[in-house]
């Protein structure tokens, strides 16, 4: 075996399960992320950018592993992952750690984890598995069970309280149910019921959650408190103009006016320094990932792989939309990171796992189709 063929073989092993369009887009996004994080951390230290690079590398390895797992294997993991996730969530409710008035963390002795993050993946996995199992004889009762499976963990997370994550978990599961074909009539009825429930649910919201809605409606009512984030981020984005103020040159970003500027509000830094052109480019890159994801889902051979690929893709969109909507002031402030852009190991890891699943689905179909 020549060296050349050895290299070819290694390269083949490394890339066989990867999806080229997704991979290229992700690398571009990661590069943008590192660039903006360097700027958001003041432009004089590589600490954060290097940290994010490490996050990307670790997540890439995990993604590669997931991509190499056949969808059947992934499906088998659905129940254990969900059970563990649910157990941990219950653990949080019983003996979780409280920080900033929220009980979201669980100390496992070797480290503190946030079990709701696991649910973001575990929920669609479980529901996709469930519908896969019931595909032969899908009845309305199955949808009811699915909704129950969806509501319990979401409610647990909402009680922590963590409305943002609860919405993400709920929507990830909901996407599965939606894609599985729950009838439009029921969907419509559910939407009407949910809308009707808002006035009744409103009193149960926490004050800070209500405040976020008020703030969305009129940020100027509390310019130094809850409205401050939105006011400063819209100023940053708006002042960026067509082409932005240039890398490292955004005054809002560099002078600390943007809160959480390398995490949840990184889009404000990006918008200020790279302008409308940068913003549209980012949306385009997201569209590539979403489009590719939907394509993979539509071509997937099994119910499970279709549903999980579709749900992962729609979740990805949800993250992007909720974050950009929040930072530009069209959605309330909920703590959702901008996918593949915000600093943060957990978020990057769960996104890469999702994309790993997409890649697994897209590269394993021949094997399963038979």
């Amino acid at each position, binding site marked *: 075996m020549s060296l050349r063929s050895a290299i070819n073989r290694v390269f083949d092993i490394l890339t066989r399960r990867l999806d080229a369009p997704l991979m290229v887009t992700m690398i571009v996004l990661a590069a943008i992320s590192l660039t903006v994080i360097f700027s958001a951390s003041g432009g004089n230290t590589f600490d954060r950018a290097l940290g994010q690079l490490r996050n990307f590398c670790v997540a890439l390895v995990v993604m590669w592993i997931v991509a190499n797992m056949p969808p059947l294997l992934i499906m088998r993991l659905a129940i254990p992952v969900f059970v563990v996730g649910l157990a941990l969530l219950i653990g949080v409710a019983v003996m979780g750690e409280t920080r900033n008035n929220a009980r979201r963390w669980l100390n496992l002795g070797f480290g503190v984890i946030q079990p709701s993050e696991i649910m973001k993946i575990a929920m669609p996995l479980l529901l996709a598995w469930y519908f896969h199992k019931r595909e032969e004889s899908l009845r309305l009762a199955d949808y009811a069970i699915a909704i129950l499976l969806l509501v319990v963990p979401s409610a647990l997370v909402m009680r922590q309280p963590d409305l943002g994550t609860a919405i993400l978990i709920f929507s990830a599961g909901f996407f599965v149910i939606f894609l599985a074909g729950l009838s439009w009539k029921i969907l419509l009825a559910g939407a009407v019921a949910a809308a009707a429930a808002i006035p009744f649910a409103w009193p149960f919201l926490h004050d800070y959650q209500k405040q976020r809605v008020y703030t969305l409606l009129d940020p100027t009512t509390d310019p130094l408190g809850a409205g401050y984030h939105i006011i400063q981020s819209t100023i940053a984005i708006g002042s960026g103009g067509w082409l932005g103020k240039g890398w490292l040159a955004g005054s809002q970003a560099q*002078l600390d006016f943007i809160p959480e500027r390398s995490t949840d509000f990184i889009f404000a830094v990006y918008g200020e320094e790279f302008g*409308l052109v940068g913003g549209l480019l980012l949306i385009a890159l997201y569209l590539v990932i979403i489009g590719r994801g939907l394509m993979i889902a539509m071509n997937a051979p099994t119910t499970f792989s279709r549903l999980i690929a579709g749900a992962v893709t*729609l979740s990805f969109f949800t993250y992007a939309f909720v974050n950009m909507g929040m930072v530009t002031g069209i959605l309330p402030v909920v703590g959702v990171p901008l996918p593949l852009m915000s600093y943060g190991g957990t978020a990057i890891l769960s996104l890469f796992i999702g994309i790993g699943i997409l890649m697994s689905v897209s590269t394993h179909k021949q094997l399963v189709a038979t």
Partner: protein
Amino acid sequence: MIGSTIRNRELEINVFRGRALFAGFVILIALSVVAARLIYLQVIKRDHYYTLAEANRISLLPVVPNRGLILDRHNEVLAANYSAYTLDVMPSRVKNLDAMLEELNTIVEIQPRDKRRFKRLLEESKNFESLPIRNRLSEREVARFAVNRYRFPGFEIRPRLFRNYPHGDVASHALGYIGRINDADLKRIEEADLTSNYRGTDHIGKLGIEGSYENELHGTTGTEQVEIDAGGRAMRSLATTAPVAGNDLTLTLDIKLQKVAEQLFGEGRGSMVAIEPSTGEILALVSRPGFDPNLFVDGIDPQNWDLLNTSLDKPLLNRALRGAYPPGSTLKPFLALSALESGKRTPQQSISDPGVFRLAGVAHYWNDDKPGGHGVVDMHKSIVVSCDTYYYQLASETDIDETAKFLRALGFGTKTGIDIDGELEGTLPSRQWKSNRFAKSTSEARKWYVGDSISAGIGQGYNSFTPLQLAHATATVANDGIAMRPRLVRQITDTATGKVRSTAELDANKPAPKNFKPENVAVIKAAMAGVVTEGTGARVFANAGYVSAGKTGTAQVFGMKRGEKYVAGRINERLRDHAWYIAYAPADKPTIALAVMVENGGFGGTAAAPIAKAVLDFYLLGKKPDINKLKAAQSEPTVSD
């Protein structure tokens, strides 16, 4: 069965694809909304947000100008600035101030005195203001605090300019002091439309030169455009408009003379004003006791404040301008001048003084100081020996309103126009005055009686004037009847241009005070010279080494019953007579005119004249005063005046 499964599967795939396409459609719409929002923010509203971002980023900081210096007439520095660090607190940002101060004390020494002063500032201030808790930090303390800064939110070290008065309490009443801007100051600043010029300034001149020349001394505040971060910290300077330092003032005061004169008063109370007759320039303005203006610069602590405020000696009272005392016999030369000017008397007109003055139809009689009287007395002798009877008679023949008119021209009962605020007009009695003064009493009490004229006629009665007024009138006589407006500031040096404005030129536009006939003034001058050679001032001024002119005065504080002998020792110290001496020298070409007043000092010839002589000795001959000799002269047996 298999067929239906396949059909089911196809159906399911079709449903899935339909749903996925629908989702894709929704996604496109949602992301289009985000894109539209971006276009709205970044294209349509871009200018609006750009302006907001700039407003966020750029802050205009005031750059406080250096306050102008105050120099004496020989360029000796009387008030200067120095830079030092203060530790400021913004009380609104500190939760438990007392606990925080305790903790701070381990790093920067906070004395009880600092705390008391701070409490006082706190009571007077608005909540959001930043207040100094410690002034003049050492380099070590600055470094120690810098390291521990994170522990003390709301505390900050600031470099600041301080005012320093190197001569301490010398000339304190003339200089005044600066203190923190209070509500009243703020209101005045607002009314004068100077608010922007006082941004960043936290001290303002309160009294004396510092107060009255505030506009010259303050300077023009500069601005610095700085880029600030969200926490308000300045990151870098973008542009600066340099401040223009306040103008320097050169005073007319001679600080050496001032110091000597203040020494002469010892622990006692009193005042002296010395004027250069030809210019009106005030050479010394003494009011004792004084105070240390340095105490006020950082905000005075309550202990010192109480001490100054409650002391019976009233150290904060500027006696030279705001102390009105009956002038006693020192008024006689001016009464004589008025009589000459009005034609009521000629110099030669004489009276015979039997030692007592009686008025036809009035049972009351008025004693002369000298039992048995002074014999034949003309105007010259009336001043030299200080003959009361001469002036009783003059007063009985002169309408009080006419006397008031002439005395007013000499500056009595009116402001002299000195260039610092706060001088009193004193009391120049007249019919109108008495009627106003007793407006609430019976018409009997408001009427003017001839008896009022007679006691007013020897400088007693309702008369009361400030030492400044006496000195000013003396200087007018010394200057051959040409009155010069008294002045403390000689010139103003514009720091920006280096141009010097003399205040004499500035004064030229003001209406000149009334002048007097030189021949009349000459009579008075000769008589005042006689006081020193042969009269009530002769003993003190024997062998002076220069020729001076003067007049003694002893002003009653306490009315004596007739026949009761005035014995100083028997009377409460504060009810004793005030001692006066007015003088100018050299007699032929005066370079200095002065009025000395020793509060409750007793006889003018004994208590005040030796001080006047020591001042003249120093000014004319450069002779340092001998305090022991002065004490000895002041305890000589009393002579009448």
